[in-house]
């Protein structure tokens, strides 16, 4: 007991010191200060994600500026598209991981009363992912036949081993390529069902959880909005970053025109703070919105972004707890995820 007392006391002291320092910072810099701690920003730093600001971007105006978004009166989105993926390593064959993966995507449709149902059939795909090059052709055929007899599909992770002799055959590296393949499969499913929605309902607003950049079809559709919750990649120059981080609730940045290296389609993007980040980390309640490029004047584009931002603000309630991303995730997307986890 005495030992525990000895451990506890310094923590309290450190906690008080941190509080005191934080208060001093608030006093000196006001709302430019966001709290630190075990938060999303720290998580980004810890998980080793690539943090870049290298997208080719251009401010629609001369420089980034802040716009207030009007509080909405009604909910506008009628469809919510999301996907999930789930994986488990079946076995290691000669050190090559055989990863069973499930990818699924669905659109949940919302009626006027706010009730959610599934739009058409969900896309669900089960397969075993492995590196064909690492297994070798003979073993690959053996495994494929064996799995086929049990209703399973064997899918090549399309890794670089075949073309790059220096590529790692480390099982962890191979597992990562398998997971990447699974993620691509998920993207495919999301893209397919999103395209189907656009073909069926050109004018009905669709909320897409994630980037639209992989689907030129959705980028061209006027009612589709992509929402990115994580900010491993920032779409503003470093000198403009404080503007983004200082956004208050129901404020957005002006529109940014962007194109990334792998994609010929340009798109519009902007940042929107859904909830107040007072006392939270800098990314709390902050989403990035993507739409296709709209024709018209700069004013028209900003007006359109205001309208879409207002639609997004409407999705703040009900909140999506217990999901840890509840500050940036609408309840309808959580509903879609729960549905997919139940059926896939």
């Amino acid at each position: 007991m005495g030992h525990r007392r000895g451990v506890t006391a310094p923590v309290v002291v450190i906690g008080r010191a941190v509080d005191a320092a934080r208060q001093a910072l608030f006093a000196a810099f006001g709302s430019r200060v966001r709290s630190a701690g075990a938060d999303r920003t720290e998580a980004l730093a810890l998980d080793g994600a690539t943090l870049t600001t290298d997208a080719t971007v251009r401010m629609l105006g001369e420089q980034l500026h802040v716009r207030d978004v009007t509080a909405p009166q009604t909910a506008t989105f009628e469809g919510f598209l999301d996907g999930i993926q789930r994986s488990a390593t079946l076995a290691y064959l000669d050190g090559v991981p055989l990863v069973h993966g499930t990818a699924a995507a669905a659109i949940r449709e919302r009626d006027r009363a706010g009730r959610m149902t599934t739009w058409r059939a969900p896309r669900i795909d089960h397969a075993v992912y492995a590196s064909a090059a690492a297994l070798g052709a003979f073993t690959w055929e053996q495994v494929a036949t064996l799995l086929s007899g049990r209703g399973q599909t064997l899918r090549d992770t399309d890794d670089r081993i075949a073309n790059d002799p220096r590529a790692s055959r480390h099982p962890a590296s191979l597992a990562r390529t398998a997971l990447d393949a699974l993620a691509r499969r998920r993207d495919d499913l999301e893209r397919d069902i999103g395209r189907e929605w656009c073909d069926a309902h050109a004018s009905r607003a669709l909320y897409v959880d994630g980037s639209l950049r992989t689907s030129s079809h959705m980028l061209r559709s006027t009612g589709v909005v992509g929402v990115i919750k994580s900010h491993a990649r920032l779409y503003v120059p470093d000198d403009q970053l404080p503007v983004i981080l200082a956004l208050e609730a129901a404020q957005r940045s002006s529109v940014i025109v962007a194109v990334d290296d792998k994609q010929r389609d340009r798109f519009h993007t902007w940042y929107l703070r859904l909830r107040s980040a007072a006392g939270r980390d800098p990314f709390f309640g902050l989403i990035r919105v993507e739409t296709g490029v709209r024709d018209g004047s700069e004013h028209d584009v900003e007006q359109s972004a205001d309208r879409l931002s207002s639609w997004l603000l409407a999705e703040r309630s009900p909140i999506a707890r217990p999901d840890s991303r509840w500050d940036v995730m609408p309840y309808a997307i959580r509903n879609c995820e729960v549905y997919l986890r139940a059926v896939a």
Partner: protein
Amino acid sequence: MIDTPDAAPRRPLGRVVATERRPNTPHEFHFWTALDANLGIGTIVRVDGNIAVNGHVPQIYGVVMEGQSWTDMLSPLDDVMGRDGQPDGGLVATQRTEIRLYTANVLRHIPDEPLQPVPMGTVWLADDRDIELALRMDGYLAAGKRTAIPVGLYRSGGTESPVYLDADFLLGPEAAHLNITGVSGLATKTSAVEWLLQSIFAHFPVEKGSVAAVCFNVKGPDLLYLDQPAALNAEDAAMYATLGVPAEPFQNVQYYAPYDAALRGLATIRSHEALQHNVQPLTWGLREVLQYAVTLLDREDIDAKADALIDFITDRVVGQKFSDPMLGGEMVVQTFADLDHWFRTLLDGLERKDAQSWRTHHVATIRKVRNRLVNLATRCAGLVTDGADVSDLPFGTFTDRSVHVLDVANLEEDAQGLIFARVVSKLREHLERRDLGVNHVIVFVDELNKYAPSDGPETYVRRMLLDIAERGRYLGLVLFSAQQFRSQVHKRVVGNAGTALYGRMDGDELATPGYAVLSPAVRTKLSTLDKGQLMVRHPHFTQPVFVRFPRPSVLSGRLGVERFPAVPVEEFDAAMLRRLRRLDSGVTLDWLRSVIALSDEADVIRAVRAAEREQPRDVKSFVAAQFRRQVAPRELGAPTPLVAPLALPVSDDPYGF
């Protein structure tokens, strides 16, 4: 079967679910439904299994006993945050995912064996055939062996199905008796019994014999208008039609009531002239009362010695020639007046001889028994006569589907006890001898909390009720009983009731251990039942079932009193006139007064009772004949002076005579 393209296809109501923490068992299962599913506590459902067992796909019937709902909300704070702390604030774009999870108790497995946990499967709202199977009514609804008595309509989710009781388990011999409980005014206890009697009279199978009812009206006017029609609304009329019971009052009802204490009329609210055709006095003489006198005597007061003397008088004295040296000759004791004379003669003889005992009975015991017995006529005045005139139920000539109502509401408790004890004993005697006139008699007694309480002193009435409850079904003597608080009635009385009905219940009563077997939802439903709704327990039903029954097609007590107001207390002459006018409407007050002018009230009452008993064709002559031994009234002339005056008075002499 013809396809009807317009008819919407039936859709399943829900799906069975089970988790490790909430597993299904052979007696209970869980299922979820759509939010707008039309079901509730008490709804009967069918589960269709998916996997055949022994070549049969199992079907399970259950009744919903509990319901729960919840959303995916982690904490109430989430809603507070989502609405910015304002109950009516903010736009809520999406409805949270919500579940309606119901728990049902199993009514029946088909096939019965092997008995397994309820399988996963689709849940369907039960239809008419399902209801029959679920409640095991198919056994007694089958053609050729139908013994079904409608008790009400099961209504839920658009299904409206008759629910039947099995006559073999309601009126015997398999089980018998019915008990109904619920709070006063809202539980519709009396209405339920009236309805059920109508249903029994309409559906009791002829091959099972005849049936009659004897009802004790212990309070108010509830049972006093069973022969008068009620105005039914369309819904009630439709229920009667669906259940196959004629919506009409009882056709054969007879009312009985003792006289009031002043002997001027019957002690009943049913005294309106238009309703007197089937009301008759209930009066008993010494012979009828003495056998049950023990019900009126205080057991702590009457010891073994007194008991022995009473038995002696009953066996050896009453109704036969009795001679004893102490009496100075032969005596015949027929009435309370005779008995009083017998006692006085005996005590006089003992005094004369200065004897302290007679035939082993001490003089003090004799005085005590005399005091108690002779006093009975006073304590139960109106019921017990000191003459020999007796008016009784038609023991031996009961007719099929007849109702006999004894109005004892206005009597003292000991008089009520005497009536109950004697009537039930006589019914039992006759049923044992198979000479009552009917094979089954339903005895209806309300206020069991008063007559058969679970605690308190042992009473003769409680012993009688226990006797009926435990042995009546073998004789065809069936007890329909009612009370407010079932938990406070003797366990053996309610425990022997094969069928139990529950109307709206009091919360305190529902909190007693006897209701612990019911789910909280069922208890909540019981505490909020509407009039006309009952929960039924019956030997064939493995779980309680909720039904709705129609308003009785007889006039309610309240409306009966309004439509047929009771005759107010009258002068003696007017009261006697009214009684005689029931026999002969030509009797006038002047005529009656001329006949009874010189008679005292007791003689007049005796004469009127004789007329009521004999119902002569010439009432006036019959009544007048009761007084002929008396001197006929005549007009008196001017008095004749016996002695002539000495002188005429002098008119102008102020001192003259």
